[in-house]
């Protein structure tokens, strides 16, 4: 196997069900120059170090060769970049303001208080499964659950939820790196989806400015804090980001989670007996099968020497967090799914200033979803293993997860 095509192999659709042997191969060269300007980093300590390195930028304008997935620096017609693609101080300001209506310390209990509502949505979805001959867990459960949650949290009317499906799918697909392919056409489609989503949100925000409700859009639209208010464009980018992130990641966490549990029936049984085990199970899942497999949108502001390699200024950095999560230098028996692991400081939510904004919500959603599925599905089995995967190598997860069970407990 030549080094040059390792990344391409990882991105190849055929390797989606099990990229982990390729990640192990990748880790042999902790910092790999793919030759086309991208530096692929795959070992735990190196990734962690770069995630905390102030010489690493998230702003695509700092790339020596501007571009990258879904980015066109000349396009002024679309929404401005959301805080995930910005550096401090703009990043910090926007993230801080967004946090005032989402998480601690400002809203210490916002997520905790959603618990009852999350339980209710999960119960409703499981009640509605119907025939147990062939359940598509993705379509019938793990997609609609987080989508309903993020729409309610933000304040998007239920009847509009389906419209996001298309926009979110398109935008998520645009994050999928396809080196060597001309991204022009894909970028065009993505920009169109972003613009449409933005226009829809603009209408909603306008409405919330007049009639504030108890939801995040209302709070963000009417925010007046030490950092001031968000401009309408900033507000649009931020809410679009939350909406997309809320769509595409937790789905995979829950689906990968159920897949892993069905492959480890002893753990599934333990979860059934003790729902509290959901907490360490979800942490181990974030290590073992992270919904975001790699972070492809960073660049260097200076030459950075790491892992015996000097990454030049302006290089494109690909941090393969899923490979770092199984680095034997960091974790004992990394290829084993072990919820009893004592030391699970994984990279599943990233680290540093861009560490996952929605982590507390994602954790709670996955904990509730998996413990309820374990409790209510009697004798669940996989109908296909491996299942059919989505195209996306970054946001990796099954497209469908056909399962069956004997009955559904009330």
């Amino acid at each position, binding site marked *: 196997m030549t080094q040059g095509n390792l990344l391409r192999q990882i991105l190849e659709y055929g390797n989606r069900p099990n990229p982990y042997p390729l990640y192990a191969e990748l880790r042999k060269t902790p910092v790999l120059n793919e030759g086309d300007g991208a530096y692929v980093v795959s070992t735990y300590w190196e990734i962690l*170090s770069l995630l905390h390195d102030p010489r690493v*930028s998230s702003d695509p304008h700092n790339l020596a060769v501007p571009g990258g997935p879904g980015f066109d620096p000349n396009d002024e017609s679309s929404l401005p970049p959301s805080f995930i693609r910005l550096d401090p101080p703009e990043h910090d300001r926007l993230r801080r303001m967004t946090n005032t209506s989402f998480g601690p310390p400002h809203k210490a209990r916002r997520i905790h208080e959603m618990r009852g509502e999350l339980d209710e949505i999960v119960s409703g979805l499981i009640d509605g499964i119907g025939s147990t001959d062939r359940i598509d867990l993705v379509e019938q459960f793990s997609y609609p659950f987080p989508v309903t949650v993020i729409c309610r949290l933000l304040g998007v009317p239920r009847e509009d939820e389906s419209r996001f499906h298309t926009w979110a799918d398109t935008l998520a697909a645009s994050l999928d790196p396809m080196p060597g392919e001309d991204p022009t056409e894909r970028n065009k489609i993505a920009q169109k989806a972003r613009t449409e989503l933005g226009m829809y949100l603009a209408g909603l925000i306008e409405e919330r400015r007049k009639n504030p409700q108890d939801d995040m859009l209302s709070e963000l639209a009417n925010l007046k804090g030490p950092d001031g208010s968000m401009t309408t464009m900033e507000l649009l980018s931020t809410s679009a980001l939350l909406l997309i992130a809320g769509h595409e990641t937790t789905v995979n966490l829950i689906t990968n989670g159920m897949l892993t549990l069905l492959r480890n029936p002893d753990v599934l049984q333990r979860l059934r007996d003790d729902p509290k085990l959901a907490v360490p199970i979800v942490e181990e899942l974030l290590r073992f099968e992270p919904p975001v497999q790699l972070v492809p949108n960073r660049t260097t502001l200076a030459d950075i020497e790491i892992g015996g390699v000097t990454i030049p200024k302006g290089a494109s950095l690909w941090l393969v967090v899923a490979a770092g999560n199984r680095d034997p230098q960091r974790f004992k028996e990394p290829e084993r799914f072990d919820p009893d692991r004592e030391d699970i400081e994984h990279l599943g939510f990233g680290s540093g200033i861009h560490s996952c904004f929605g982590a507390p919500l994602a954790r709670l959603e996955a904990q509730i979803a998996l413990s309820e599925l374990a409790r209510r599905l009697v004798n669940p089995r996989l109908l296909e293993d491996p299942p059919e995967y989505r195209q996306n190598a970054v946001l990796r997860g099954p497209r469908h997860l056909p399962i069956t069970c004997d009955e559904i407990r009330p």
Partner: protein
Amino acid sequence: MSVDGYLDRLKRDGRIVVVGASLAGLRGAETLRDGGFAGTLTMIGDEPYEPYDRPPLSKGVLLGKATADHTALPRRRALDAEWRLGVPASGLDMAAKRVRLADGDEVEYDRLLIATGVRARPWPHEREAALDGVFVLRTRDDATALQKRLADGPRRVFVIGAGFTGSEIASACREREIEVTVAERGAAPLVGALGGVVGEVAAQMQRENGVDLRTGVMVTGLEGDSAGRVRAAHLSDGSSVETDVVVVSLGATRNTEWLAGSGLGAGPRGIACDAGCRAFDIRGIVTDDIFVAGDVARSPHPLFNYQFLSLEHWGNAVTQAETAAHNMLCESVDRRPHMWIPAFWSSQFGVNIKSVGVPSMGTEIIVTQGSLSEHRFAAVYGFQDRVIGAVTFDDARWLPFYQQLIESTAPFPPQFPTVDRRPEGARPVSADFPDPSVPTHGPTVTLSGYSPADRRITFTPGRH
């Protein structure tokens, strides 16, 4: 295997005594049990409480958000120890291997771990210190008493000393909307630990939050009323402040007096030990059965020019105790050095302050990210052209990077661009530490001892 199987016997049925039942003592004892020590374990503590956590005492407890009796340290494992609480150790007989207790009892040991920590330095005038309303803040009882007094709604609290504890107390008072005056001998709060440049930021934070901050002044006396309650503090600039609560925050004194005359190398700066936590005797000879850990220990650190450092840091207490306990139970070739990078945090006026390395060794400072005026920044300290320390205000997620710079003795000033670099970070300025010969509340790191010429080393800390 040792020649005579001593270690095996020690592990099986030896006697280990831990003096000091706080964070370091507890983590040390737990590590001994983890390491297979099955013999008799005695824990001696001067307070009547089982080990508790101190950081909440000056934060959550003073705010009334937590009570002092709910800060017990979580246990990592069952200890199966004999607890001798509420009785301080009063002496050590090294030859007979015995610890004397204040109640006259004696406890024999095969190996001894000393983790007696520090205590608050009291107000030096005894009569004034005894006035009702005069407090220090170190123990659970101190915190309970002060919290109760704050809940009574005093007209004004007067804090002597603007180190970390004093500043956190002032912050808690303001959050409770209590008027507070802070008197500091140095030019700014936190100046001993972080220097004048950062101290100026701390001063702004205090003033913006309504603290009546007086710097460059000493407190010359505390005045009581006829009932023995404190009513005013007098300052060296001739002014006086009416107050009904005074908190003395003048730093800490190491608990080593009980070792006087024992022959151990113990004094006001702590107990000197080698990098493996083995205590020195007064002749400079390392002992093999007495180990020290936590605030009371002074040990040499290669990254900081082999200065003997004593660190009043939470994380140091934990890791040093773990290292000491490990070394107590193994052959000399298996011993580990204690190579912790100093690190601490504080929380005041809504700002999270974190530091790594030894800023107080620094002579220069440069703001590499953010801005001093926004009270949100990362700054790096330089000493002899290398990075020696770093501090962040509300910017802690970058700190691991700066720790790496310290560990790799990176050149100062850093030459690379960073995200959020501002014009004020274009060049270093003097870090503006006070003359060390002028006493102040003191930094949380005490430097002393051997200082060889600048060394260039690559430091590789253990990662597990």
